[in-house]
């Protein structure tokens, strides 16, 4: 019965294939993209939350390493 439902959708077998290709393309794209970022740039970006140099961050407990 469920297989009847399946066969009644036109070309249902393309859905998973298209999906997989879409995902692989997107994923590979993101990975390539990521590794093209410059090293010093990445280092700066990852420090953004810590960069309170110009703001008054009251220290409740000493947490800065």
């Amino acid at each position: 019965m469920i297989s009847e439902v399946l066969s009644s959708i036109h070309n249902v077998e393309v859905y998973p294939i298209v999906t997989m290709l879409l995902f692989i393309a997107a994923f590979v794209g993101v990975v390539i993209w990521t590794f093209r970022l410059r090293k010093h740039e990445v280092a700066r970006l990852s420090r953004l939350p810590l960069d309170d140099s110009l703001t008054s961050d009251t220290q409740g407990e000493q947490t800065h390493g």
Partner: protein
Amino acid sequence: MQPETFSYDNKIVRYFTYATIVWGAVGMLVGVIAAFQIFLPAANHGLPWLTFGRLRPLHTNAVIFAFVGNGIFMGVYYSLQRLCKARMFSDTLSYLHFWGWQLIILLAAITLPLGLTTSKEYAELEWPIDILIAVVWVIFAINMFGTIIRRRERHMYVAIWFYIATVVTVALLHIVNSIEIPVSLFKSYPVYAGVQDALVQWWYGHNAVAFFLTTPYLGLMYYFIPKMSGRPVFSYRLSIIHFWALIFIYIWAGPHHLLYTALPDWAQSLGTVFSIMLIAPSWGGMINGLLTLRGAWDKVREDPTLKFMVVAVTAYGMATFEGPMLSIKSVNAISHYTSWTIAHVHVGALGWNGLLTFGVLYWLIPRLFSTQLHSRKLANAHFWISTLGIVFYAVPMYFAGWTEGLLWKQFNDVGMLQYPNFLEIVAQITPMYAIRAFGGTLYLIGVFIMGYNLIKTARSGKAVDNEPAQAPALVPHVEEKFNLKDGYGHRWLESKPVRFMLLSLVAVAIGGLVEIIPTFLVKSNIPTIAAVNPYTPLEIEGRDIYIREGCNNCHSQMVRPFRSETERYGEYSKVGEFVYDHPFLWGSKRTGPDLHRVGGKYPDAWHYQHMEDPTSMSPGSIMPPYPWLLTAKVNTAHIKSKISALRSIGVPYAAGYEEQALTDMQQQGNAIAKRLEESKIVVNWDDEIVALIAYLQRLGTDIKVGAQAAP
């Protein structure tokens, strides 16, 4: 470059911290009450608004939307301002957002115990509140994007990406899953029916986990763990891959809640495959969070906030390993409908969401009040008691889940069910329910310890409403061309928040569309079962009572195609049987037995007595009694609008049937009253119990050709 002077709005952050603590305590208290009710039916007190069926949605909504919701806003409002080096876009919007959200929670706390519910899990709130949620969410979105657009730091840090994905996707999920036809001010029917309703509901339901309980909290993790440890995130590159992979894959996972149901097989498989793939980005995130602490583990020994973070991220890792495992069909065959699912979500909710929230609170409150934490010792005590609470919660629920899953399926030597009496298995796990309630109580005690500690902390300091800050203005620069040279590709994307938002939307929409559209195409192809007919007016009223009382929180209506289930319940459920079910009521837990084939199984008098006192018919039953159904009258005023609302969404009632409905209702009610009279039970045709009996006796009988309801 002359720095600009501005200030951060700390008052709004403080407001959200208060709301987080208060609603956390309330939501968990309701959870503890429900945990006791499940093995002590007397704890329902025979009061309609205190029964488990109504409190369970109150608990889930309070924890998800009130506790974690306010926790999200607390963390976002604090970190977004600092990452953007800008005050929130509009103070007015900030406070509209705050009070609007609290109003929604208050309305939920009033309407859910009154039984005003749509029955769809985590989307139980009725249509006027749904509209209010959408409005408040849009206010939050405008406030957030306004802040991002006015930022003084060009690069959007990864936490902000997670916030953007959250805002966009939650809006999409909420709107699509809440499309419903109002019948009255507090009653509506979803436009989807049966299998489609189930698919949309769980596309929403699982992504509530993904985009409400996970992505915003990952954003908080990426901001607060570096803050607490004073170290940058382990790998920024990994965080980028983590983000895109997570949002793209998560959106597909919904159907793993519907394995072995009447959902088409291909959709089930899609859900399974993507759920298994989810391990990769989830663990990438966990590893990124934990490795941020490399070389700083000595601080974890000292600092209670980091202890909470470490266990929270570890619990995240455990829950996101277990989820994919539960999505494997052969595992799910055992786990589905059991307490195993409850253990799984609580490792996530208590471990990941709860502990991370506590960690952030212990870190934030001293800073918001320019003071020191009142007592590190109490914070450590809270850490240990809550961690122990999680253990005492999860372990017995795992045992209970495996017990249920395996005993339901057990056959004896001659091929008969070893435990044909469902209650025999319930009796096995009742002690587990009791230990779970103890674990939940421990966890709740921890929250009160935290409340005390944080109040003392706040009193020892002074709140600063506007924290002064300085940052150079953003230099407008020439629009970068989209090119992959020099690694500018990502910069092109992330320096434009709106562009980024649209791309996240595309990433999540792909999954939604590919999964949902074919199932809607099935509509015309669902094998129609000629014998399946719309519900009669009395059955509609009975079904709405079933929804009001939250019966679907303990009873499923979906017999899976296993011999162990067809032996116990009867023929397995067919997709064509649910075409007129607005909403679907398949349920997701069997605290009590499945009801899809209950129609005709017992005489009317059995149901009457069972609702009055379940133990009279089922000795040892843990179901609460429903005495008020015997005296309350069905409100017949709405039947006309119910019929026309259902017709407008595709249920084939004949034109003008509204005029006939009340007469038919009376006729069917009188027939049941007459049958009950033979058992010396006196009722009126419009008593609620009569409508409920009509519905229960109808359940699953359409395909039994020539079947007669039991006298």
